[in-house]
């Protein structure tokens, strides 16, 4: 208790230290007990607290609102801020984006700059090898959002291992359209005692037309096994 009073007298805040509360010697996390709480009363005391807090701030640190400003324009007066805000309201389309949005755009640009460097990013995509990333629409929004590594499930088909799935996307669409059409025809022509049905032969059929394509034999041997279900 004597030691606690010594702390309180040194800080000039003996009335704010609760009696009977003694921090354990050697216990961690007792820094907040050694500092007096912020004053609520006198202006002079509040000023002293503010100067003390600013003195405790690490050198070189910037506030959140100063992050995206250039060093020349960082010290900005409140009058200049007001004039800039009024100009933005009058300017309409020339209004500048809020600072936080500019920070987000800058982060997205940095992410995209990695993609052309030939180094694969965390989700395995390398723009130099696999092409540029398409921009996806955000859920429920109209603004396109750049890809990032936090949503790899949205571009699984663009990974190298899933390139075949991406290549079969038009095939899947054609098969679905064929099934839909034949079902619709059956529904419409059933009254006329017609029974539409169709074969579906996806893949490459060895007709005279593809034989006119140079190197079609090598491509077919590499991409299409003779009996897919038998594994070759």
């Amino acid at each position, binding site marked *: 208790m004597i030691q606690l009073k010594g702390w309180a007298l040194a800080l000039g805040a003996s009335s704010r230290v609760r009696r009977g509360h003694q921090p354990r010697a050697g216990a961690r996390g007792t820094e907040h007990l050694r500092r007096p709480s912020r004053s609520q009363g006198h202006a002079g005391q509040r000023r002293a607290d503010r100067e003390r807090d600013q003195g405790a701030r690490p050198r070189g640190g910037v506030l959140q609102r100063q992050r995206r400003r250039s060093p020349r324009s960082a010290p900005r007066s409140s009058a200049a801020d007001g004039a800039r805000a009024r100009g933005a309201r009058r300017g309409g389309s020339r209004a500048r984006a809020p600072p936080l949005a500019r920070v987000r755009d800058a982060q997205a640009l940095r992410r995209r700059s990695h993609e052309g460097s030939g180094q694969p990013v965390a989700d395995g995509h390398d723009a130099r090898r696999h092409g540029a990333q398409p921009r996806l629409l955000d859920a429920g929004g109209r603004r396109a959002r750049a890809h990032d590594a936090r949503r790899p499930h949205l571009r699984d088909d663009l990974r190298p291992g899933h390139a075949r799935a991406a290549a079969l996307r038009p095939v899947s669409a054609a098969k679905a359209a064929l099934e839909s059409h034949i079902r619709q025809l059956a529904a419409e022509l059933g009254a006329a005692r017609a029974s539409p*049905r*169709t074969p579906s*032969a996806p893949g490459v*059929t060895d007709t005279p037309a593809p034989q006119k394509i140079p190197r079609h034999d090598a491509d077919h041997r590499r991409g299409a096994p003779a009996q897919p279900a038998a594994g070759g």
Partner: protein
Amino acid sequence: MTTPDDVARAIVVLAHPDTYWITGNVIGVDGGEDIVG
């Protein structure tokens, strides 16, 4: 690789009058490529 004869045989089956009860269906003629993905 699928040959024209493979597709022709499937068409012969589907065009046969005895299969009139098959309607609105799509018969895959791909050697099982759908199965292996």
